[in-house]
């Protein structure tokens, strides 16, 4: 149960972002309305086997990481080397590329938080970090060598489990920073990043932890990309920077991207007492399920209940809604209409950061949470890039008898869908993320006004 009066502050953040060396460059590019999406050479190599060819990807080289390939197996990255010596070799030996990004992002976030070693390594500090996909790159080559090439199990080495297990990112971060509190991963598909932050918020709010390193990761993986490409849900037919176009009437799928976002949360009074720089306060987190029995199709009713659970009777109206906004035909329309149904169509703006870097899957909610913190800091709204033309006609589902939501076409909401970044007084931001399985997550953050 919540402990009354106990608040949660965001005190640190770090991440791995496409085409960016660090958080500063990420921020600069986003508020300059730039796209981080490129043609992906690994997808292009597959020629006609893959439909989509664009991604917000991050290479090992860009992160100053070098793979060492096994002499025993074909194409198996036995271990990675950190060319900048940020992570000890003992930690690298148990990590896939996503776990390495989680560790790098955690080091940056903890540094920004300013926690002492005693604080970081205490029983009051938890790690809650998750990923959307498995350790595909490790598993694919290991199992191919065993099952197809008839190699012995020992030839794959002793790190297939720790480098590919479900909570590998959290485990690797925990072993690196040596915390003594909880170490877990929450998995909720594309809501994973926000789900982990929300769970971490509850751990502190409920009095179970004082500090938590939380977030989401999605290591660059062609296997992940291929899975979504096979579903025919990825964007195609546009230039890279125009491929992710949430709410635009010509949108035809999302851009499969990769990255990592990690934040440090701390009990508010403890953070205040040590003079921490409080980046934001988390006011509430709510998550639920659609209850429609549908793995994929978004639910207007589920999202209505999500908003009700988040805001309740507080009367709070966010200045900015950081939308999930994936650039898929049905998802964006349902989301926009559910936002409008709850908040009306005036006095707030919708930001869709996926328009600039694509859909980072398990990392999306965490990286986009970081973009919300940046919006609070800069007092600037990030755009819905490429939302150039909105549908002047009703969506097909709006024409059915079953539809209970707003009947206006999306074009009626032009004023709340900015195409460029702009300055504005921002006190409250809501972040939304949804995932396969009908899972919905929402968080409300605000500026620290004390």
């Amino acid at each position, binding site marked *: 149960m919540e402990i009354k009066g106990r608040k949660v502050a965001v005190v640190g953040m770090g991440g791995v972002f496409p085409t960016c060396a660090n958080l500063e460059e990420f921020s600069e590019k986003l508020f300059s309305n730039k796209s981080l999406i490129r043609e992906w050479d690994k997808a292009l190599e597959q020629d006609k086997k893959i439909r989509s060819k664009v991604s917000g990807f991050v290479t090992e080289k860009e992160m100053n990481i070098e793979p*060492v390939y096994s002499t*025993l197996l074909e194409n198996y990255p036995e271990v990675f080397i950190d060319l900048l010596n940020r992570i000890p070799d*003992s930690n690298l*030996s148990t990590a896939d590329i996503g776990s390495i990004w989680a560790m790098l992002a955690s080091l940056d976030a903890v540094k920004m938080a300013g926690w002492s070693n005693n604080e970081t390594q205490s029983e009051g500090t938890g790690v809650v970090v998750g990923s959307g996909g498995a350790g595909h790159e490790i598993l694919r080559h290991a199992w191919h060598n065993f099952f197809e090439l008839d190699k012995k199990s020992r030839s794959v080495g*002793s790190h297939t489990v720790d480098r590919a297990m479900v909570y590998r990112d959290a485990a690797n971060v925990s072993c690196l920073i040596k915390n003594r509190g909880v170490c877990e991963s929450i998995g909720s598909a594309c809501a994973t990043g926000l789900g982990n932050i929300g769970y971490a918020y509850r751990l502190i709010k409920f009095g179970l932890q004082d500090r938590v390193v939380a977030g989401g990761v999605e290591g660059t993986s062609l296997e992940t990309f291929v899975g979504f490409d096979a579903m025919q849900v990825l964007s195609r037919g546009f230039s890279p920077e125009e491929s992710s176009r949430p709410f635009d009437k010509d949108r035809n799928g999302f851009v499969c991207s990769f990255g990592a976002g990690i934040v440090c949360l701390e009990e508010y009074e403890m953070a205040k007492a040590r003079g921490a720089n409080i980046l934001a306060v988390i006011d509430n987190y709510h998550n639920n399920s659609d209850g429609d029995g549908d793995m994929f199709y978004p639910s207007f009713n589920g999202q209505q209940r999500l908003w009700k659970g988040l805001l309740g009777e507080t009367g709070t109206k966010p200045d900015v809604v950081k939308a999930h906004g994936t650039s898929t035909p049905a998802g964006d329309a349902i989301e926009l209409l559910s936002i409008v149904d709850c908040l009306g169509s005036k006095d707030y703006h919708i930001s869709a950061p996926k328009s600039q870097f694509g859909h980072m899957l398990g990392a999306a909610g965490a990286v986009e949470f970081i973009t919300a913190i940046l919006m609070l800091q800069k007092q600037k709204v990030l755009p819905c890039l490429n939302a150039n033309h909105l549908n002047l006609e009703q969506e097909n589902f709006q024409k059915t008898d079953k539809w209970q939501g707003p009947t206006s076409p999306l074009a009626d909401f032009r004023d709340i869908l900015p195409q460029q970044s702009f300055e504005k007084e921002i006190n409250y931001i809501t972040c939304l993320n949804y995932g396969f399985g009908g899972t919905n997550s929402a968080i409300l953050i605000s500026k620290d006004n004390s």
Partner: protein
Amino acid sequence: MERQEIIEGLVEILKTIRTIDQEKLKSVTEETDFIADLGTPSTELINIAAKAEQKFDVEFDDDDIDDLGSKVKDIVDLIIRTKEKG
């Protein structure tokens, strides 16, 4: 194959295990203990054994790997014994 030749080959393998302090590899003898002297994580021992199979063109029995000691001489003995078995 001479024992010293095998030890040199093992050192080449150990150089690829990044969790081992490379400085300590300058003075490896038959009595060197992988765990106690080199600080090799126990999870790496099977990787060393698998790489030794490849380098010395042998295939160890599972029972022999289970019984393998943690000193350099133990694996040198096993390599020679396995080679003799053909």
